[in-house]
C-alpha cells in the first residue's frame, strides 16, 4: 500500500495544537479548582497563563499560513469549517478567560460572586470547546486516514485537561497549596487513565473500521519513539510517580515529585500531538487493477 506522508502541516501547527489545548485545559482546571476549593494564588496564575498560551498558539498558526493578512476572513465559513469555528472560539476564550482572571485586580471577591461565576462559566465552556476543537479540526481532514477519526476530539480534550493540570503541578512548588495539591494529583491521575482509555479505543476502532489506510496509519504511529515518549514517559511513568507520591504526602519530596509529574505530562502531551501530526498519511490512490 503506497501512502504518502503529509508535509502540509509542520511544527508550527504542533505548537498551536499543543499551546491551544494546554491553555484551554489549564484555564478549565483552574476555574474548576476555584469554584470547588476557592481561589488560590496557583489557580489565579493558572487562569491567566491559560488564555495567554492559547494566544501564543494562534501566533504559531499565523506564522504557518501562507497569507496571514487574510486571517480576518478566516471566520467566514463557520457553517462548515472547523478552522473557522476555532478562529471564533479561541479569541472569545482569550477575552473572557483574561477578563475572569484579571477582574479580581479591581474587584477582589468577584470570582466567587455571581458575575465572576457567570463570566468564568462561559469561559470554561469555551475552554471545553477549544480543548476539543483541535480534534475536530484534524478529524475534518478527510484525506488523512488517521485524523479522520471520531475519537480525536476526545483524545485532544483529555490530553488538554491532563496537560493543563500538568502546568499547575509544575508551578505548584512556587505556591503554598496545602490540601489542593493532593486533589490536583488525583485529578491528573484520572485524566491520564482516561487518556489511556481513549488511546486504546483508537486501536479498538481499527477492528471495526474497514479502512486499510487507517490500520496502516496506526501501525506507522506506533513507533518506538511514540511508545517511549508519548505513552511511557508522558503517561505510565507519571501515573507511577503519582502513586508513589501518596506515600510521601506533605513532605518537600511530595511537591518535587508532583512538579516532575507535571513536566512529564507536558512532554507527553506535546509528543502525542507531534506524533499525530507526523503520522498523518494521505490515503493511497492505488486501485485494484
Amino acid at each position: 500500500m503506497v501512502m504518502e506522508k503529509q508535509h502540509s502541516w509542520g511544527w508550527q501547527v504542533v505548537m498551536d495544537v499543543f499551546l491551544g489545548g494546554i491553555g484551554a485545559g489549564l484555564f478549565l482546571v483552574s476555574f474548576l479548582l476555584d469554584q470547588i476549593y476557592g481561589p488560590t494564588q496557583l489557580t489565579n496564575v493558572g487562569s491567566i497563563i491559560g488564555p495567554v498560551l492559547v494566544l501564543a498558539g494562534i501566533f504559531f498558526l499565523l506564522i504557518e499560513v501562507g497569507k496571514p493578512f487574510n486571517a480576518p476572513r478566516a471566520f467566514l465559513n463557520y457553517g462548515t469549517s472547523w478552522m473557522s469555528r476555532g478562529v471564533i472560539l479561541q479569541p472569545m476564550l482569550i477575552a473572557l478567560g483574561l477578563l475572569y482572571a484579571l477582574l479580581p485586580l479591581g474587584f477582589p471577591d468577584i470570582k466567587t460572586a455571581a458575575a465572576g461565576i457567570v463570566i468564568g462559566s462561559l469561559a470554561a465552556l469555551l475552554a471545553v470547546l477549544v480543548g476539543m476543537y483541535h480534534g475536530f479540526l484534524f478529524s475534518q481532514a478527510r484525506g488523512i486516514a488517521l485524523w479522520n477519526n471520531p475519537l480525536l476530539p476526545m483524545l485532544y480534550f483529555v490530553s488538554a485537561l491532563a496537560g493543563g493540570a500538568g502546568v499547575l503541578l509544575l508551578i505548584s512548588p512556587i505556591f503554598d497549596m496545602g490540601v489542593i495539591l493532593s486533589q490536583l494529583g488525583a485529578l491528573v491521575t484520572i485524566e491520564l487513565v482516561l487518556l489511556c482509555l481513549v488511546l486504546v479505543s483508537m486501536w479498538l476502532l481499527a477492528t471495526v473500521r474497514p479502512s486499510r489506510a487507517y490500520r496502516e496509519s496506526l501501525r506507522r504511529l506506533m513507533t518506538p519513539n511514540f511508545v517511549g515518549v508519548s505513552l511511557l514517559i508522558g503517561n505510565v511513568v507519571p501515573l507511577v510517580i503519582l502513586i508513589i507520591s501518596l506515600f510521601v504526602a506533605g513532605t518537600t519530596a511530595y511537591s518535587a515529585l508532583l512538579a516532575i509529574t507535571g513536566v512529564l505530562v507536558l512532554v507527553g502531551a506535546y509528543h502525542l500531538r507531534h506524533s499525530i501530526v507526523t503520522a498523518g498519511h494521505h490515503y493511497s490512490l492505488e486501485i485494484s487493477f
Partner: protein
Amino acid sequence: MAKWGMVIDLKKCVGCQTCTVACKVENMVPPGIFWNRVYDYEIGEYPNVTRRFLPRPCMQCEDPVCMAVCPTKATTKREDGIVSVDYERCLGCSYCELACPYRARTLHKKKEYYYGESTPYEDFSYELRAPHQRYMVGAASKCTFCVHRVDKGLAKGLSVGQDPEATPACILSCIAKARYFGDLDDPESEVSMLVKDKKGFRVLEELGTDPSVYYLTP
C-alpha cells in the same frame, strides 16, 4: 445546467505524462505544482510484474471537502460542478490540501522559475491570464477542468468535450485518446454512455465525496 465530468480509460493510458505537461503549459502552472498527475504503479511480484497508470486531475467533487474546510470561503463550486479557488481570499492554511483525499491541491509556497530566472513566458502579464492562472504565493491552487476553455467554448456556441476549443488541454493532448470530457447530466453524452456501458468507477468512493471523474478498468 450541465455537470461537467471526465472519464479516463485506464486500459488506454500509457503513462506518457503528456497530459501532465499539457496542463502545465495551458495553465502556466509554476514549478513544483502539478494540477494533473499520472501515478505509476508496479503491480505483482517479480517476475510477474506489470505497470499500471492512474491519471489524477481534480475530481471536482459534488461534495467537495476542500470547500467545506476552507475557512475563508475562498473555495467555491459553480453550478456546473467545477470547484475553483479565489487566490485573493485564500489564507494559505493548507487545510484543503489535507482534506482532499485525492491530493489534488497544492499550496504555492514560493515563487520559482523553471530555469532559475524569469522567462518571458513565465512573466506573461497576469492581467491577460484567466483568474485561476494568476497564481499567488501563499495560496492553494488546483485543476479547474480548464474552465477558461469551457467558458470560452460555451460563449462561442461550441460543444464542450467535442470541439477542441471547448475542451480541457489534458483531453486534447492525450496520445492514446484515453480521456473523455462532457456533461454527466446528459444521459446521451459520450461520458455518460461510457460510465454506464463500461461500468465506470470512482476512486475512494467510500469517502462520500461524489467525484466527477470516472475511470474505466483495464
